[in-house]
Each structure stands twice: as structure tokens, then as C-alpha cells.
């Protein structure tokens, strides 16, 4: 695993200098690392090697992988737009296993509970390690030190950056496509397994050595829109089903009925209004979590009352954002992923509902990105500390349970709001020091809990803006101490070993923190 030594980075965290055999740059601070050199590039190909009639179909995935020259030690990538309904990620790895491949690196854009069987493939030696989000059982497996290589967690933007910069090289990208033509043009917005956007597969399609499109809805050329361009695709494979539609998108997205979560959401909306962020032409981003959805509903009423309209909202799109668009309360939805049937229908039919990719939204090694243009973003966290540093990856017992998603990338919004309960089943969310740093406090402006709103003292402008409002603005320490009184004192620290089992990358590819093996 790690042969390198540990060094303390600019966040004060010990991180390995060598990860899976590659030299690492420790985190230097926000904006402190200066990349050099040129972007990575796949090999030059020629039309003479591809069928002139544009028909790149092969009988099955095994044939495609053979033609791509699959061998042990390669990196195989997949995307997570099919979420917990995805069948293609596992199909690719299992087919590779049948072909006798060993020691593969799997590079998903995120993993879901449906990917738990990858644990068996790791036990069998087929998969060596995972670089991607490690959710639930995969995270636990990693935390227990059972994975052979070191886990690497990247944000959505960080994954694009790593592929673009050549930090990670994809040998074979296997792209599940709800619609595709025989040439390889593909989209996620149409077909029985429609998932909306395919943005998370964009980098894979551009930078991988070999690209395989797997579809259950083959249409004659041209497949429009071509979110994935066939000119980047080597082979097209037809299968009966790429995913379970009921688990790809939800029929309807329900807003939380938890009174405490609704209270938090209402505080967030009121904060956005009272701080003057909610004004004509503003923008915001809220995901599909319970609090975020409820926030959108509260803000919507306030926007209507004030006669205010947004220029754009960023999603994670759901029925609730689609309603904003259809009711004329926003000009555009810039959509990263599409969560329910209403949103899928909207992205397929409304030109103002636009599919985006981590390149446009999140990539830090680009000439700007959309995330920094957003006026306010509402995010979650598992822990926040008194320095406003936040953790989304591990729980307070040290176990890795979540990926980063777009969370780190969104921190560049003009106002980053973490909406979190102050306590979850006796586990405090506000702590002295986060178990794992996923984002540093200088980028986190406001923490909204059911017991009050803490504003980062650095944001004197926000403190000034809400002065005189009747919002419960309180110092973070006061809320934290109140909760500690309720839960019976500070919890015991997690029992961790000194062996790193995964690293948390910052958006620029530097190493922000380590995840340590838990004691057995």
C-alpha cells in the first residue's frame, strides 16, 4: 500500500506522499497550488480503423473488452447517472473477471449500494482498489483496511481534473447510455432507462484510451442530443437492460416531514432572504436532500411574495426545480444530475433545462467554472468544527461512508451554507475538530442548525447584513456547548490506527486529508 512517508499539509493533516505508487502533492491551501504542463491526451486514432458505415456495434461486452485489449492491472471507469439502479458498472467488472483479469482499478464517478458486490471482486483479486466515492459497505470495507490499494476520493470536479491532468489514466471507459446510436452518440435524456444528463461520463469519453458505450435503447443515427459524441467511442454494445428504472429516478421526490429538518430549511430560506442574497437575477444551488428540497419550497414562497426571479438555479434537479422553471421563477436550470421523473421529462423537452458536466460546472483546472458564479449553495455535512472546517466523508466513529460528490466544488459559491442538524441520535454534528477535513473553514460561510445559525466570523458582511433580523444568529461555540450538555458530554474520539486507507483529494488534485484504518 503506502510506502511513502506522511507529511503534514497546509490544513495541518498528516497525509501520505505516495498513493498507489504515485507521488502526491500535499494540500497547500486554497488556490495555492500552481499546475504546470499540458493536459493528458488519448492516442490519436484514424477513421480508417473504424467502420465507414458508422456501425461500431459488437455482439457483447466481452467482445468489446477483448477488442479494447483488456488485461490485468488496467483501469476501468463507469459513471453513476443510473444511481442505485446501475447494472453496467458491475457487468463490466464481472465480464472482466470472467476473462481472467486481475488487479483492476475501478474508477466510478460514484458508487451506490447496488455496487456492494465489488467487495467480492476485491476479495477474488479481480479489483485491486477503487478510486471514486466509497459509499456504505464499500466505505466500511475500506475503513477496515481490507482493500489492497489505497482509496482515492475526489469531488466530481476533482475527478474531471484528475482525468484531464493525467493524474489518473483510464484504459477502458464503459459508459451506460439510456439512448445511443450505432456510431456511439449517446444521451441520458431519452429511453426506458432515462436518467437525464450524462455529464459525469464526459471526461471518460474524451480522455480514455478506449471507450465502450452500452445501451438498452439503440436508435438509428443520429442520437440527439449527443451528450456523448460517437467520435470518441470505439464500440457500441446492446444489452437488454442497463438499469432498474425504479432505482434510477424516483417516481416523485418527497419533501421531508421531519419538523426539525423543516425548521432548518426555513431558517436557511429566511437567511438567504434577510442577507439580501435573494434578489432579482440571483442564483442558487440546492441538492435533492430532504433539507435542500424543503429550502427550495420555502424560498419559492418568499420569491413569489417579493416578486423576485432567479437567473439560474443549479441542480440536482427535481420536480421542485422544474416547478420554479415552469412558473417563471428562474430563467434556467443548469443541471448536473436528474433525480425524478418530472426532472427527466423536463430536461428532455425544455431547452431552458440544460444538461451540464463537471467540466462546465466544477473543474478547477479550467478557465473558470460555474460553481463560483452561484450566489448561494445549500449543502450538508456529517461534522463541522469550530473553525468551520467540514467533513462529508467519515462519521464521528472514523468510518468512511460517503463520497465527496460536488460538495467541494460548490464551496466556491459566493455564500456556502451548510444545513445540518446540530445532533443526530446523540452524535453531535458540531465538534471541536472534524474527523476528516473535506473542506476548510475559509470557504464555509454559514452553518444553519435547528438550534441557531452560526456565521463564519470572517464574513463580517453577512453578519452585518442580518443584523436586526429576528433570525437566531448564535456563535458556533454556543450551539456546540448547548448540544454537548444535552448528549451527556463530548463523545470519545474514534479509535483509529496510524495506517492510511484512503485519501481525500482537494479540487486541485492535492491531498487534503487521510482516512485511517479503524481499530479492529
Amino acid at each position, binding site marked *: 500500500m503506502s510506502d511513502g512517508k506522511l507529511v503534514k499539509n497546509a490544513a495541518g493533516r498528516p497525509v501520505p506522499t505516495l498513493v498507489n505508487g504515485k507521488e502526491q502533492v500535499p494540500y497547500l491551501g486554497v488556490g495555492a497550488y500552481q499546475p504546470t504542463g499540458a493536459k493528458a491526451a488519448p492516442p490519436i486514432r484514424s477513421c480508417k480503423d473504424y467502420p465507414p458505415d458508422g456501425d461500431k456495434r459488437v455482439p457483447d461486452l466481452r467482445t468489446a473488452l477483448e477488442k479494447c485489449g483488456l488485461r490485468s492491472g488496467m483501469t476501468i471507469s463507469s459513471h453513476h447517472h443510473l444511481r442505485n439502479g446501475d447494472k453496467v458498472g458491475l457487468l463490466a467488472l464481472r465480464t472482466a473477471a470472467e476473462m481472467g483479469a486481475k488487479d483492476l482499478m475501478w474508477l466510478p464517478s460514484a458508487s451506490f449500494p447496488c455496487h456492494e458486490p465489488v467487495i467480492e471482486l476485491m476479495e477474488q483479486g479481480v479489483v485491486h482498489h477503487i478510486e471514486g466515492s466509497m459509499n456504505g459497505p464499500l466505505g466500511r470495507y475500506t475503513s477496515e483496511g481490507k482493500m489492497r490499494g489505497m482509496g482515492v476520493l475526489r469531488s466530481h470536479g476533482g475527478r474531471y481534473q484528475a482525468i484531464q491532468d493525467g493524474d489518473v489514466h483510464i484504459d477502458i471507459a464503459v459508459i451506460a447510455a439510456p439512448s445511443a446510436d450505432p456510431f456511439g452518440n449517446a444521451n441520458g435524456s431519452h429511453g426506458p432507462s432515462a436518467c437525464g444528463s450524462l455529464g459525469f461520463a464526459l471526461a471518460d469519453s474524451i480522455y480514455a484510451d478506449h471507450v465502450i458505450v452500452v445501451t438498452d435503447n439503440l436508435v438509428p443515427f443520429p442520437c440527439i442530443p449527443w451528450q456523448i459524441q460517437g467520435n470518441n467511442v470505439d464500440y457500441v454494445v446492446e444489452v437488454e437492460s442497463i438499469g432498474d428504472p425504479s432505482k434510477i429516478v424516483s417516481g416523485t421526490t418527497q419533501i421531508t416531514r421531519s*419538523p426539525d429538518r423543516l425548521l432548518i430549511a426555513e431558517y436557511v430560506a429566511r437567511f438567504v432572504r434577510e442577507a439580501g442574497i435573494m434578489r432579482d437575477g440571483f442564483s442558487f444551488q440546492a441538492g435533492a436532500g430532504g433539507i435542500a428540497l424543503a429550502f427550495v419550497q420555502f424560498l419559492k414562497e418568499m420569491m413569489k411574495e417579493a416578486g423576485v426571479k432567479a437567473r439560474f438555479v443549479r441542480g440536482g434537479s427535481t420536480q421542485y426545480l422544474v416547478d420554479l422553471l415552469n412558473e417563471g421563477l428562474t430563467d434556467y436550470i443548469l443541471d448536473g444530475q436528474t433525480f425524478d421523473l418530472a426532472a427527466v421529462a423536463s430536461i428532455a423537452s425544455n431547452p431552458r433545462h440544460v444538461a451540464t458536466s463537471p467540466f462546465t460546472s466544477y473543474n478547477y483546472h479550467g478557465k473558470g467554472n460555474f460553481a463560483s458564479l452561484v450566489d448561494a449553495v445549500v449543502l450538508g455535512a456529517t461534522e463541522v468544527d469550530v473553525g468551520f472546517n467540514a467533513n462529508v466523508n467519515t462519521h464521528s*466513529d472514523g468510518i468512511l461512508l460517503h463520497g465527496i460528490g460536488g460538495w467541494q466544488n460548490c464551496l466556491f459559491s459566493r455564500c456556502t451554507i451548510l444545513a445540518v442538524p446540530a445532533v443526530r*441520535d446523540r*452524535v453531535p454534528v458540531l465538534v471541536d475538530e472534524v474527523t476528516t477535513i473535506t473542506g476548510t473553514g475559509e470557504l464555509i460561510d454559514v452553518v444553519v442548525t435547528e*438550534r441557531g445559525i452560526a456565521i463564519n466570523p470572517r464574513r463580517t458582511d453577512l453578519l452585518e447584513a442580518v443584523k436586526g433580523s429576528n433570525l437566531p444568529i448564535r456563535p458556533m461555540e454556543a450551539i456546540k456547548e448547548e448540544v454537548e450538555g*444535552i448528549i451527556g458530554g463530548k463523545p470519545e474520539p474514534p479509535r483509529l490506527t496510524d495506517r492510511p486507507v484512503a485519501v481525500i483529494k482537494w479540487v486541485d488534485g492535492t491531498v487534503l486529508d487521510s482516512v485511517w484504518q479503524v481499530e479492529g
Partner: protein
Amino acid sequence: MEGTTIGGGAGRRGDDVRSDCWVAVELTDSGGLQLEVKSRVGTLYGPSITKGLEDTLRALGIENARVEVEDQGALPWVIQARLEAALSRAGAPHTTRSHLPPARVLPPPGGTPRDRLRRSRLYLPGNEPKFMLNAGLHGPDGVILDLEDSVHPDQKDAARFLVLHALRNVDFGGAERMVRINQGSLGLQDLDAVVPEGPEMILLPKVETADQVRTVHERILEIQERWGLHHPVWLMPILESALGVENAFASAAAAPTVAALTIGIEDYTADLGVVKTTDGSESLWARSRLVNAARAGGVQAIDSVYGDVADEEGLLAWGRRARAMGFQGMGCIHPRQIRIIHEAFAPSREELARALRIVAAFEEAQKKGLGVVSLGTKMIDRPVVLRARSLVERAREAGMIPQTDKDLPAGEGDGSPEGGEESR
């Protein structure tokens, strides 16, 4: 899921349980204390849970017992309550409270004013700890820890322990702390458990006669004497039958500590054999009768609950009608109803502005020594002045008027319609 492996057990177990725990106890003759703790938060609180159990057992003089705990993130006082319930079910003698750690939350000295603002009262199921912790954050005027209908008959004893500990440990913010006890002798046992913890108000279910109220009143006085407690514990009889409504005035006047009357429309309509509707016409007479009886008995009239949590407009309309009828508040079954109820029971801007003008005119007249109050060209009758003063007081209590404003002459004892009767 509730079951048992050893001896007496109490609480809830299973993966879907949150903020609660299951504790099972077997008293043994030898072998010392054998504790087995499984906890979702074991890494963070395992040693602290074990120590808490040992401390309680030792304080109760229990030297030999097997104790099993399955914890799903219960707060310390919840574990304590479940342990005590399990011990009680296992047959352990449990007569003293000296083992209890000091209360985290002390009741406000002297209790609450008899006529305090009671627009909203939030029902909390007495055997469900997870709703209790944050109830006060939603700003209800009162919380009701319910030992009656929301608690399964098999769990009455466990709920009693939980409510007892909630009163000691949960900060309900500025809310008045009420307990709804059971009927009959079970209710008297409830009183024995909770009154020493100083709830400010007791709700009596299914009251039909003044005797029921007097029995509870007398039991409370006995308990208070035993524990050396003096602050008033107010009573709110709930009328839930035709007979109860007929005897409304007698119940209001049954004891000096009765501070409010309320109605349970669900049971009342069932008693009448009619269907409950959203406009409430079938209970209109009963509710009007209650308002009149309450006024005649010098107590507050409080309405029932509105059952459809999703229907915010219906709730607002119901609340406004209730206020117009003379009610001063109603019950809530979900925290999201609180804000709407406060809105419904608030005077309109115009009403408040007019009341402030009348009060100002009254003060002006007082200053000048005039017997007649006039506003513009109109003479204002004395009842109108009294109503305006009462409305302004309520609005101030509800935070609708800045506290520093001096609209009212302080301490004027000349016939405020409801106040000043704390020592009645």
C-alpha cells in the same frame, strides 16, 4: 418491536428505532453486575453508557443483576428511564429518587401565571423520546407530554418513567410543561410519578363531572405536601362527551387551580354518533357552550386539535373561527401547526392598531381625570376599553409589540378582565 430476552425489559429495539433503547434486567442472587451493551454509538459513548448504568444500579442498592442494552442513540436520560422501567418490571423495589442525577432543567420558580398565553399546545407521545428533544425549538406556548391515548396500554408504566425524566432533563424553551394523565386510578398513579418533577399544568382526559377534577386536585395537593412543593399546578379538564359538555361550568369551577377548559372533538363527535367535518358545525354548540362555561368560571377556553397536518389553509380558517368564537388557543399534533395557529389567534394589524389607540385614549382620559373615554368623535364604552387592554396585553405577550413600549399603565388594578387571579 418489543420483546424480551431476560427478566423485565423496557424500551424499543430494532434497526428502525432512533434515539431510544431497549433495556432488559434480570435480578440475580450473585455474580455482581453483568452488563452487556450494544450501541449504535458504542465507539463514541460505550464507556459512558456502561458507567451510567452501573451508577444507577449501585445507587439503588442493586449489587447483582444481568442487564442487556440495545441502544440506538438514546440520550442519557432516556437510557436511565428505560433502565428504571425495566427494573420496575423485573420487580426491583423503587421507592426513592435519591439515586437520580441532579435535574438538568429546573422548573421556573413559582410555576406559570394562571392566565398565561396558551395559543398552542403541542402533543408529544409520552413513550416516544425522539420528538421531545427539539419540541421547544418550534416555539409552542405549551407542550403536552401525553400519557393517555398516544401510549399503548402495555406501556403506561414505561411512558411514566420517560415523562418523569423528560421533565427533569429536556429544555422545552419557554413552553409551559403540561402532562396529560390517564383516567381514573391510573391517572392518580401518573400524578404520583410526574407531579414531584414540577409540571406547570395537568390535562385531565374525558372529564364528565366536577368530582373527577376535585379528585385530581386533591391528589396533587397531597403529593405537593409530601414533597414540599408549593407552586400552582394548573388543571385543564378535557371535555370529550355530551355529559362532559353539559357539566362544563361545574368542571371549570370545580377547583381553584382549574385554569382552562378544552374539548376533545374526536371523542365528542363519536359520543354523539356524528361525523367530524372540517367546518366543525356538528361541534359548534358544544364549543360555544364550553366558551361560555369557561368565561363564567373565569378560566380560559381552549379549542381541540385540527387533524389534517397537510391542510394549512384549513387549519388557519379553523383557528380564526375559533378565535372569533372566544377560544384563546388550540392543540397541535405537529410542530408545523404552531406558527399557523399563532397567526390565527393573533389580532389583525387593524384590530391591534385600533386597540392601541383606544388604550392610549383611555390613558389620556385617566391623566386628565376624565370619566369618559373618547376616540375622535366617538365615545368609547368601558367594555370596549377592557377588551382593547386585554388584546394589547396578549399581543405584547405574543411579541407583536416591542416590550419597551409603554402602552399600558403598569399595575393598574381596576378590572383587567382576566389577569391578577394567580392566588385565587
